């Protein structure tokens, strides 16, 4: 066997803080062979990025590598002089970071940012480097690269920037590419394009890839093997498919089962596996198994002795006493944890009915004489939400999901159209007329950090709406109600006097939900309520939302970009594109057999190992021009001349509405039909 590209042994990286040494990476070992792909997965704070930065020797103060060894192509990275390291970086080993929006220098042309590593490492002369840069951009799927290369980063979308970052990573044909969450900031469709690119580049150039992600499915679609990290340690390492099918460490098991999978049959009970608690404090790690405080399978030995990473099956390593002793973890499989899902209520009068909803945002003039430009965010949306149902809204970023949520809650005033809520027209209602309605319709936002006032205790945050709407008198009554609300969302009522910063992200989202519930609304509009959270916490919030719905008969308008989650949680789904409804159907039917081509490609973009994928090229067109004809026709795989006229949203099958001249005309292996 030839020398592996990367050998990491017992790597320890610490942060020397005032409070003590934080052991961020604590004895990590793995090997990446030439041309191999390895994924690293784990929740935030588990040490993934610190591992990557340690490998590149790019750690900044106060981080130190405290022990272990890193060998790159047989050479000891820890013994190298800074100049030797610099010569390796960006040449033999390259790294792509998470956020493409901030990773490119805003004042330097793409061209120079691409060519500087080629010229800087002396691999190419400037004219040659330029030709190569253009070639790389072509390879990354950027149109008109000769022109694009002279642009500045702000003229590129997030997806294009990530392609540039990848091109930069591949500039000198490295032996190893480390990609830290390269698709987390991107839409599913763009994510699919980037992951596909990574796979191809690995296959074509034989570049070894170390892919870091919090999403096992993303890793599964690129990497053959995966290392699962928890509290600075690798707790399981095996072939990715094996981990997905049959995890051997309880934490990996929780990760796998916390997320709904788009290919799994839906059960009656939609509750997901979620483990309580939080990862241990890195300053004060448990002496036995680090997962023991949260582990549903722990035995007496676990809290006493720290388990080693040992073979549990051929080619499979796990750091767990129980599975090392041969025990098998139960199959949870997303469904059937008992209980029965109530059938969606009979369609009586819908609670919310939207017709012809339009919202345009005029932009400020660029100069006195320039014509005023207008963002066409929502361009005529019709939808109904029945009482007690969950309606999911999906679509790529910028398709108008958030704007729609702000319109139905009347945070924005619509440009045109009607919104009937509980039998009352609210599209043109005055703020005074809307105030009583706020009680009945509440909103939960994406960012639980930004939506809570940092200077108010959560007790005050929750009491505020109660007092403002005269639902409870100050004093004992309010205190009781607030305590009850906290209990309802699974928080300790004794925490009323704490401030938001004393809570974790998931807990804060629970508080936002409690705040929304304070007024006992009939409907909750949730705009990406879980997308800022780790998968395990996502599962907790989703379970909470399901519980609350069953107990209180809530109606949800649920906006999300994660299609598997939408399929799992929602009764019906509306697919938006450029501010228009493309398809609206019961969730199960929609995912089993999409009728609109856009729905089809959207679903096929979901990363899932071993799935066939239809790649959607390009990105949605600008919202500055009003769509003419079918808005999707520029990217539609089956577009015809007739698509120059806008297809109406028509009932193609019972209960299924599609805006396409050829409903069901686009079918694809693995997409049903």
């Amino acid at each position, binding site marked *: 066997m030839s020398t592996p590209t990367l050998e990491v042994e017992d790597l320890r990286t610490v942060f020397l803080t005032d409070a003590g040494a934080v052991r961020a990476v604590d004895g990590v070992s793995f090997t990446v062979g030439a041309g191999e792909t390895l994924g690293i997965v784990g929740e935030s704070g588990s040490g993934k990025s610190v591992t990557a930065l340690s490998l590149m020797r790019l750690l900044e103060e106060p981080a130190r590598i405290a022990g272990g060894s890193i060998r790159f192509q047989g050479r000891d990275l820890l013994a190298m002089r800074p100049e030797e390291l610099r010569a390796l*970086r*960006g040449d033999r080993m390259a790294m792509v970071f998470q956020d493409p929006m901030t990773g490119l*220098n*805003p004042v330097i042309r793409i061209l120079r940012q691409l060519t500087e590593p080629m010229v*800087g490492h002396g691999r190419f002369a400037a004219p040659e480097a330029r030709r190569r840069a253009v070639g790389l951009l072509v390879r990354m799927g950027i149109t008109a690269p000769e022109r694009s290369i002279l642009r500045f980063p702000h003229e590129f979308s997030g997806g294009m920037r990530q392609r540039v970052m990848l091109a930069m990573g591949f500039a000198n044909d490295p032996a190893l590419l480390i990609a830290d969450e390269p698709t987390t900031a991107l839409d599913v469709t763009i994510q699919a394009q980037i992951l596909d690119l990574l796979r191809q580049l690995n296959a074509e150039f034989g570049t070894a890839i170390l892919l870091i992600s919090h999403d096992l499915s993303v890793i599964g679609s690129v990497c053959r093997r995966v290392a699962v990290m928890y509290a600075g340690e690798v707790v399981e390492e095996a072939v990715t498919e094996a981990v997905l099918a049959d995890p051997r460490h309880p934490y990996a098991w929780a990760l796998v089962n916390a997320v709904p999978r788009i290919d799994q049959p839906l059960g009656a009970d939609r509750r997901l596996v979620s483990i309580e608690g939080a990862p241990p404090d890195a300053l004060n790690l448990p002496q036995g198994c680090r997962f023991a405080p949260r582990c549903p399978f722990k035995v007496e030995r676990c809290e006493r002795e720290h388990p080693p990473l040992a073979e549990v099956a051929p080619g499979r390593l796990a750091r767990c006493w129980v599975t090392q002793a041969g025990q098998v973890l139960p199959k949870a499989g997303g469904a059937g944890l008992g209980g029965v899902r109530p059938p969606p209520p009979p369609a009586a009068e819908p609670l919310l009915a939207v017709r012809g909803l339009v919202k345009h945002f005029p932009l400020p003039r660029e*100069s*006195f004489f320039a014509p005023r430009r207008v963002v066409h965010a929502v361009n005529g949306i019709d939808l109904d939400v029945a009482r007690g149902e969950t309606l999911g809204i999906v679509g790529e970023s910028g398709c108008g999901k958030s704007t729609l949520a702000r319109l139905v809650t009347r945070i924005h005033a619509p440009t045109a159209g009607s919104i009937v809520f509980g039998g009352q027209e609210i599209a043109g209602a005055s703020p005074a007329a809307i105030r009583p309605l706020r009680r009945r319709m509440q909103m939960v936002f994406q960012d639980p950090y930004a939506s809570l006032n940092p200077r108010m205790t959560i007790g005050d945050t929750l009491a505020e709406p109660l007092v403002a709407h005269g639902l409870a008198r100050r004093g004992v009554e309010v205190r009781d109600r607030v305590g009850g609300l906290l209990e309802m969302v699974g928080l300790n009522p004794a925490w009323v006097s704490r401030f938001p910063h004393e809570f974790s992200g998931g807990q804060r989202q629970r508080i936002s939900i409690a705040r929304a519930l304070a007024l006992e609304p009939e409907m909750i509009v949730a705009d990406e309520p879980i997308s800022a959270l780790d998968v395990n916490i996502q599962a907790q919030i989703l379970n909470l939302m399901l519980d609350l719905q069953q107990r209180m008969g809530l109606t949800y308008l649920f906006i999300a970009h994660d299609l598997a989650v939408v399929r799992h949680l929602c009764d019906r789904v509306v697919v938006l594109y450029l501010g228009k409804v493309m398809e609206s159907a019961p969730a199960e039917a929609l995912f089993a057999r999409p009728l609109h081509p856009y729905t089809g490609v959207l679903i096929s973009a979901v990363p899932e190992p071993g799935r066939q994928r239809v790649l959607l090229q390009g990105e949605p067109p600008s919202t500055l021009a009003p769509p003419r004809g079918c808005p999707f026709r520029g990217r539609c795989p089956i577009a015809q001349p007739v698509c120059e006229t806008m297809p109406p949203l028509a009932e193609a099958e019972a209960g299924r509405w599609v805006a396409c001249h050829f409903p069901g005309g686009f079918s694809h292996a693995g997409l049903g039909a």
Partner: protein
Amino acid sequence: MLRTVVTRLAGAAVMAVLATLVIFLIANTVPGDPVLAQLGDIAASNPATVAEWRAKWGLDLPLWEQYLIFLRGLAQGDLGTSIASQRPVLEDIAQYAPATVELASIAFLLALGIGIPLGIAAAVWRDSWVDAAARVVSLIGVSSPTFWLAFIMLAIFYGGLQIAPGPGRLDPIAFPPDEVTGFFLVDTLLAGDWEGFRDAAAHLVLPSIVLAAATIGLITRTTRAAMLEAMGQDYVRVSRAKGMRERYTILRHVLPNALIPVVTLGGLAYANLLAGAVMTETVFSWPGLGRYTFRSAAALDFPAIMGITLVVSVTYLLVNLLVDLSYAMLDPRVRR
């Protein structure tokens, strides 16, 4: 781009005229009568002399008419005649302005030339002795009163060590160069007069350091802060991950971004240097606009005050325009 410049220039012209209106109104509401200031007690007690004098300077006309006359003159490039010097205001300004502009510009270059490198060094070697030294320099610069600093400098370098020349623009016995631009550094060079150039330059050293002191401090601090901010950005880490040399990363990635806020400050600083020259000019007997302004204000010389206002606001607006243009050069995001 060109259209932006033209629009901005037109806007600047309107603003400058508006500024004269404001000054005109203020000047006419302050208590004090130019008659007293100009004629002296005896003449001012004679009503006929006073009336004749007022009529001569148009001060007997209604306020709006006085302003209209000013505007009419302005349209023809005439700023009126100074009451105190009895010469056209434009001529006065043309005589005094170059001295001030020369002093302020040298001070400005000094502030940039010292402040920016010092700020860069302080950020790159953060918490080292370089950083500490930069902090001391900016602290002294920002906190010493100009007046005091000027006297101390004169006392040490002229009075004590005798390595710097005394007040004034040139040696008292030297002849000023033939006037072409009014900037002695330029005019002496044009005349091929090396002696004169050296003399003019030497006379600039102390006053420009004094004038620049506070600005050096400000620019050092702003540069340091902007550098540190930019050094924390993701693209800097990306540059290191690409294996670029540290020097390259700092000069090509960090610096261009850090200069953006420094340019804003620079524009303001230049305008402030022009205004701040009054104090320095007084101590160094510098025959500049600062002293002219002081004299005109004391004499309630309305035409001169209006002319100075106009010149200062035009300069200020032009500097602002330059700042915006260099913004567009530095930051492609604001380019159109």
